[in-house]
């Protein structure tokens, strides 16, 4: 964007205010370099296209084969993208990742979304980065550290209310009124999340047992230990057999086997 005089800027703002939503949308598209690429007005190295999205090579890549996966529709930030499109984009990125691993013989791929300026989002058009990786390439050099149990639960307590609201999880009424508690003393334990019929639920007894947590949710389970042991019945042998089967079916064992 070239620098404007004050007068020009005022005129510009006036113009924007007077635009209808559709006009504004058109205007955004014209300003967006990626919309121009999608429209074919700017040349690009396209590697995949369908009716909802397009994948091109990044011209300033992190590594050879760095792919940008973009929805054809213009969405500036992730919350604007409809759920179905996010789902579609993620599935496409899976297949593209498979291709990149195969043709470039990478030992991994990073699927990365930058959501917001503070997160490193550079363009005003939502996109997924698909970066071929190899050990020691020093891209996205994150370092993980251990946090205490207390800290985990603090985070959980801070987020749980909002998360439940966003997920549409109905929080059960506090303590007393929970219908026939299956057994024991833990009255709350039964209905923590959505009704989970057959599955012996792993309660989240870990959630905010500490009285310091403000959550009034019965998500706060006071009792930790006894519950989980009920889960153990899941026969480990079966799971191992299933795992083996899965491994046989997989064509990307090279990567999977690196973990052994």
């Amino acid at each position, binding site marked *: 964007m070239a620098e404007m005089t004050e007068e020009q800027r005022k005129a510009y703002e006036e113009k924007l205010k007077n635009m209808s939503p559709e006009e504004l949308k058109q205007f955004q598209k014209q300003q967006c370099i990626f919309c121009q690429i999608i429209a074919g007005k700017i040349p690009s190295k396209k*590697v*995949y296209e369908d*009716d*909802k999205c397009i*994948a091109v090579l990044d011209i300033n*890549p*992190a590594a050879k084969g760095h792919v940008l996966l973009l929805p054809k529709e213009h969405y500036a930030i992730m*919350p604007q993208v409809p*759920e179905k499109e996010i789902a*579609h984009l*993620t599935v*496409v990125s*899976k297949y593209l*990742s498979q*291709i990149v*691993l195969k043709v*470039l013989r990478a*030992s*991994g*791929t*990073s*699927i*990365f979304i930058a*959501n*917001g*300026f*503070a*997160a490193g*989002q550079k363009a005003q058009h939502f996109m997924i980065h698909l*970066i071929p990786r190899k050990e020691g*390439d020093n891209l*996205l050099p*994150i*370092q*993980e*550290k*251990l*946090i205490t149990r207390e800290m*985990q639960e603090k*985070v*959980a307590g801070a987020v749980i209310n*909002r*998360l*439940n*609201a966003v*997920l549409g999880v109905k929080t059960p009424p506090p303590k007393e009124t929970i219908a026939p508690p299956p057994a024991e003393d833990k009255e709350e334990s039964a209905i923590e*999340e959505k009704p989970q019929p057959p*599955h012996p639920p*792993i309660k*989240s007894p870990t*959630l905010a047992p500490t009285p310091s947590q403000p959550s009034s949710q019965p998500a706060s389970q006071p009792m930790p230990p006894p519950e*989980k042991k009920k*889960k*153990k019945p899941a026969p*480990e042998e079966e799971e191992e057999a299933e795992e083996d089967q899965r491994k046989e079916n*997989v064509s*990307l064992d090279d*990567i*999977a086997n690196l*973990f052994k």
Partner: protein
Amino acid sequence: MKCEYCEIVEGMEKYAVLFQDEQVMIVVKDLIVTPGQITIFPKEHFTILEMVPDAILEKCSTLANKVSMAIFESLGSHGTNILIQNGLGAGQKVPHFAIEVIPRIENDNLPLQWPPKQLMDDDMDTAHLMIKQEGDKLIGIGTKKEKKEATPEKKEEPKKVVEDKDGKKNYLLKSIKRLP
């Protein structure tokens, strides 16, 4: 040796569990990039992204989007990164597919970035060709396309063949004359 996430699914209490249903779990792990990081993973064991069935992957991704929104609003973050470390080369530590949602604030100096490079034209071209060749083979991912064939046209052809035998191409006129 059991996978750590599978152990959590089975009931080991190493992580704080935020949500679970029959297919997925959302947890706060102990080994993280920054406090506030939340992890989503399918209960069923899939080592890497490519092994995850489409339906489960779609579910995980929409949940990741929702977790991201929840983080924005409850932790006061300025942004979020959504990251899949797919494979050892990408820094995957646990051999079980997962999506990380990482809260960001300005100037937090988290190294979730990379130096952009200028590759030689040759390199770019070869990468383009190789990936595009395979990319073009991907058809109908997650979409249902209906094919409609133009059957009316096929019906007209036999008529033309028959009429031509008469040596006259004015079959249309003839058909008009036949009309009552």
